[in-house]
C-alpha cells in the first residue's frame, strides 16, 4: 500500500542515494532566513495587498489580467455539466423535440401578441409623457451572456459569465434573465465578469410595488428563495402576491423590471417594522443565459464606448434591441410599425 509514513524514511534514503551522484544531499535542517522572518514578511505583504485592494483601484488591472489566465479553470470545472447537457441534447427523442417545438411556437405566438399590444401601449405612454412634459421612455439594449460558473463560496451569491471588458461590460451593469432582474456586475475581466446576485447579503436595491407605486428597499438574505423589504411600516399597503419592480432610483438598475413577488407579510407588534419577504422572479439558480442591459441610466456604459463599438465588434452576438432610442417599438411588427413610427416622429416634433 502507498503512503504509510513508516516507509518514507526508506524511500527518502533510497531517493537520496539515487540522486547522490548528481546533486547535493537533502539538507536536514532548512537554512536561509528564519521561519519567523519569512512569515512576518509575507504577512505584511498580504495585509498591504488587502488594504490596497479594499481601498484603492490600483490593483484592478492586475486582477483582471490574472483573472484572464485563471478563468479557464472555471470552464474546465463546468465541463462535466456541459458534456451532460450535450449528451442530453443528442439523446432527446424526436417526439420530445416536436413537443418542445410546438410549445415554443405557442409561446412565441403569445409573446408576439403581447408585443403587438405593447407597441401601441408604448406609443400611448410616450404621448402621455409628452403631455406631462416628462422625460421620454427609452428602450434598453441588451447583450446575451452565458453562465460559466458559480462562486464556490456557499456564503456568497455570485456567478461568472462569459462576457467581459472586450464585449463592453462595465462595472455595475444590471443583469437580467428572461423572467426578471438577477443582479449586477461587480468585477470585470477581459473575457469574463463576476455578477453579484440580488440575494447576496451585501446587496440591496430600490424597488416599488407595481400596484400602487409604494417604494421600498429590497435586501438580499443570502438565501436563494427570498429577499426582504427593509423598513416597511406596519400600515404600508403591501399584500401577498404584489409584484415588486425596480424603481430606478438608485441610478443603477433601469426602472420597471420585475424583481419579485411578495410571499409573506408578517406584522409583529413587538417589531418596529413589518417583515416582508419577496421571492425573486428571476430563476437565480437555474438560468443559463442572462441578459446584460445597456440603459440610458447607466449612460450606456460611459466608461467604455459601447454604442459605437457594438455593431461592428459583435454583429452576430445577439444584440437584441438594435433600434434607435427614439423609436421604442419593434420595427418588424407587421402593420403596426409604419403607423407607430409616424406617431413617434409626430410626438417628437410636438415636444419642443
Amino acid at each position, binding site marked *: 500500500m*502507498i503512503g504509510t509514513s513508516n516507509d518514507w524514511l526508506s524511500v527518502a534514503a533510497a531517493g537520496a542515494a539515487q540522486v547522490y551522484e548528481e546533486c547535493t544531499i537533502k539538507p536536514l535542517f532548512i537554512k536561509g532566513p528564519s521561519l519567523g522572518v519569512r512569515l512576518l514578511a*509575507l504577512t505584511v505583504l498580504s495585509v498591504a495587498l*488587502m488594504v490596497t*485592494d479594499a481601498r484603492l483601484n490600483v490593483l484592478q488591472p492586475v486582477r483582471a489580467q490574472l483573472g484572464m489566465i485563471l478563468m479557464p*479553470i472555471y470552464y474546465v470545472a463546468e465541463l462535466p455539466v456541459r458534456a451532460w447537457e450535450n449528451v442530453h441534447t443528442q439523446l432527446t427523442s424526436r417526439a420530445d423535440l416536436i413537443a418542445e417545438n410546438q410549445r415554443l411556437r405557442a409561446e412565441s405566438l403569445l409573446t408576439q401578441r403581447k408585443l403587438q399590444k405593447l407597441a401601441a401601449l408604448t406609443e400611448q405612454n410616450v404621448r402621455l409623457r409628452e403631455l406631462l412634459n416628462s422625460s421620454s421612455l427609452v428602450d434598453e439594449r441588451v447583450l446575451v451572456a452565458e453562465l460559466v460558473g458559480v462562486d464556490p463560496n456557499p*456564503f456568497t451569491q455570485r456567478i461568472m459569465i462569459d462576457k467581459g471588458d472586450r464585449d463592453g461590460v462595465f462595472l455595475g451593469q444590471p443583469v437580467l434573465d428572461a423572467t426578471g432582474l438577477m443582479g449586477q456586475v461587480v468585477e470585470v475581466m477581459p473575457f469574463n465578469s463576476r455578477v453579484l446576485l440580488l440575494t447576496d447579503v451585501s446587496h440591496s436595491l430600490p424597488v416599488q410595488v407595481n400596484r400602487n407605486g409604494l417604494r421600498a428597499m429590497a435586501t438580499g438574505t443570502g438565501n436563494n428563495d427570498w429577499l426582504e423589504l427593509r423598513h416597511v411600516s406596519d400600515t404600508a399597503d403591501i399584500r401577498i402576491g404584489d409584484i415588486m419592480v425596480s424603481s430606478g432610483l438608485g441610478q443603477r438598475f433601469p426602472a420597471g423590471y420585475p424583481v419579485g413577488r411578495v410571499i409573506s407579510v408578517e406584522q409583529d407588534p413587538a417589531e418596529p417594522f413589518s417583515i416582508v419577504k419577496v421571492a425573486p422572479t428571476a430563476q437565480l439558480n437555474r438560468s443559463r443565459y442572462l441578459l446584460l442591459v445597456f440603459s440610458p441610466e447607466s449612460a450606456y456604459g460611459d466608461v467604455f464606448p459601447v454604442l459605437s463599438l457594438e455593431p461592428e465588434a459583435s454583429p452576430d452576438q445577439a444584440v437584441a434591441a438594435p433600434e434607435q432610442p427614439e423609436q421604442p417599438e419593434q420595427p418588424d411588427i407587421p402593420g403596426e410599425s409604419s403607423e407607430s413610427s409616424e406617431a413617434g416622429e409626430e410626438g417628437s416634433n410636438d415636444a419642443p
Partner: protein
Amino acid sequence: MRHSLVVGFTVLLALLLSVMPMPEPFGFGRPMWLAMTVAFWVMVLPHRIGLVMAWFAGLASDVLYGELFGQHALVMTLVATMVLLLYQRIRRFPLWQQSLVMLPVFGVAQLLLLWLNSLAGSRPPILLLLLPALVSALLWPWACAFLDIFRRRFHVV
C-alpha cells in the same frame, strides 16, 4: 525543475477541485483542497516548497474566488508555517494520527479566513465554517495517498 512541474500540476488540480460545482447542501463542507495540497508538499519537501510557494498558490485562489488580494495568500502562508513547524514530527506519524494533527491546522486556517472575511465585510455563520476543516482532516489520508502516487511516479525528492 521536475518537482516544480509536479507541484504546480497538483496545485492546479486543487484549484480546479475547489471551484467544481457541488450540490447545494454539500457546498458547506467543500474540502480545503488547496490547503491540503500545500500542507502535503510542505510536509514532504520542506527544503523545496516553502512559504513563498504557498503564498502564490493562495494568491491564485484569491483571483479565482474574487476575494480581496492576499486573503487566501495569508491563510495558505499560515498553513505552510504550521506544517513547517510540525513536519519533523508528523512525518513519522501513522496517517490517522497525521489527520488528527491536521484538524487544528485546518481549523486555525478557517478561523483566520473567517476573521479576514468579516474584516472585508461579509460575515458567514461561524460554526458551519469549521465544517470544511473537519472534512479536510477526514480526507487527509486519501489525499496523502493520492499525492504520494504523484511523488513516487515522478521521483520527486
